[in-house]
């Protein structure tokens, strides 16, 4: 898995590289838009992490040229401006995801992983992790044969966690997918909801499936 990180701020580029390498990615770095365009055209990357504010050709410019050239490499945009309009503009230009700065490192890694999975997403109507199943048509959850009652929001949270099973889900990501908030509301809403879902799916069962990754988010998986 090879990722191109385009970021003019050297320190940011450096820790993003470290974090992605720690997760087993091969990482290339460019510090400006033109280099990035050349690199992306020469090498097939699995994903691009692209800062919008770059010297010379900016991130959105790079993205547009890539898409014109029919280069469909998944792109995660980074931006220090963090405006709703910018996000919309980025997605319209062909980006797959958008993350405002300053971001949580784990959040960035989780999103890069999600980008690569996006194409091969699980289309099945029954999601399964260990003996926990979720029917996406009837919205019914079961564990060990026992039915679990879920509210609409709890269902959406569990569905998201199960679709991303085995991968870290950052708080911002959860807020975006489950609540459709693209701002950080500064509440512990996610934590409280996760706690409730955990009570329902884990309290009376072994092994525990829903794990907290300290300071970063949550992951649903069989082995801790």
């Amino acid at each position, binding site marked *: 898995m090879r990722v191109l990180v385009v970021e003019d*701020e050297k*320190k*940011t580029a450096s*820790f*993003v590289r*470290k*974090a992605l390498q*720690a997760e087993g990615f091969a990482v290339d770095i460019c510090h400006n838009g033109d280099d990035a365009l050349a690199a992306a055209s020469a090498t097939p990357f699995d994903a691009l992490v692209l800062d919008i504010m770059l010297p010379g050709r900016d991130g959105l410019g790079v993205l547009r040229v890539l898409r014109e050239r029919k280069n469909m490499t998944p792109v995660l945009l980074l931006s*220090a*401006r*963090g*405006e*709703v*309009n910018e996000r919309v503009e980025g997605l319209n230009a062909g980006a797959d995801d958008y993350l405002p*700065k*300053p*971001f*949580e*490192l*784990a959040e960035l890694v989780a999103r890069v992983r999600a980008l690569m999975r996006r194409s091969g997403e699980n289309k099945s109507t029954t999601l399964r992790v260990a003996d926990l199943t979720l029917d996406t048509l009837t919205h019914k959850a079961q564990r060990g044969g026992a039915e679990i009652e879920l*509210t609409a*929001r709890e269902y959406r949270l569990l569905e998201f966690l199960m679709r991303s099973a085995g991968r870290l889900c950052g708080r911002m990501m959860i807020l975006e997918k489950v*609540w459709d*908030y*693209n*701002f*950080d*509301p*500064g*509440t*512990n*809403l996610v934590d*409280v*909801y996760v706690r*409730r879902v955990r009570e329902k799916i884990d309290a009376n069962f072994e092994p525990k499936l829903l794990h907290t990754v300290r*300071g970063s988010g949550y992951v649903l998986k069989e082995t801790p």
Partner: protein
Amino acid sequence: MTIRTRLSLWYASIMFIALMVMGVLLYYQLVIEPRQEAQRHHREQDEESVDPDVFEDVTGIVFSCGIPAALLAVAGGWWLMKKSLSPIASLTRATERITAQNLGERLSRTDNGDELDRLTEVFNSMLARLDDSFNRIREFTLHASHELKTPLTVLRGETETALRDESLSLAERERADSQLEELHRLTKIVDGLTLLAKADAGQVALNLEVIPLDELVRDNFADLQILAEPQAIKVELAACEKISVRGDRHRLRQLLLNLADNAVKYNQPQGTVTMSLHRAGDVAEFKISNTGAGIPAEVLPRVFDRFYRGDAAHGNAVDGCGLGLSIAQWIVSAHNGSVKIESGSAKLVTVTVRLPIVETK
């Protein structure tokens, strides 16, 4: 007393005195002098020719003509004053319209080179200077919050990278954790500051559409239930009428969540939060009240101020960035609404948000 009334009265009095003087002079010229003349002529002739009624006649004329004339003078003066003062009145109205939000506006000049034109000019140049310094402050805040983001990104990233190091001792880990916590807080402050600075500069575009406010409130109530649970706070949705408003969905949700979060944060264990959405004429009225310590009356007017913290929030008892209510207030005013906060004797704090209703078929 307005200048207009004062000047009219002065004018009328002067007019009245002038008329009286004129009356006296006329009396002297038309009555006294001819009479003396006549007396000289007819001194030797019959003595019965002096007419004693002439004196009363003239006094009568002076009064019966003088008073209506004076009244006419009052009316004329009133009109004249209105005419001469109307540029000042319009100047006042124009100045009233100008607030910190539209300092770019200028008063229109009459261009006839009079004193008022000069005054308008002075006003306009003062406005230009004010506008300039306001803009500088806004730009400064905006740039400052942007500039803070890059080092903040690096700091957060490097602290998180450090935390991944398995060989970290417990003490080191705790230190890094605490730093990270503060960095999160700093991020929230910078985010809030950026939003408000952009809003001040008119750079936040709202994505306006017709929004079923009742659905947003129900949704928000569900979140409130969850937020309130850990402290065993009772929540109630007293009313939720079907109402639509024109607004930005994300911002309105941010507003509602912000208020719900405050109502829980500043509450007491086993307290209550009551929410309601009513139609009040042509506005939607959203109310949320919570029990808790209450807010002292002298503090109330300041709770919407940026970074203002009441005593209750000091000492880190409640975590927040100090910008929540300022952001809420901005969202409401960007939707042409109003927000007010009250704290009754029962230590109940009520926030009322009013937004213009959009009628849907």
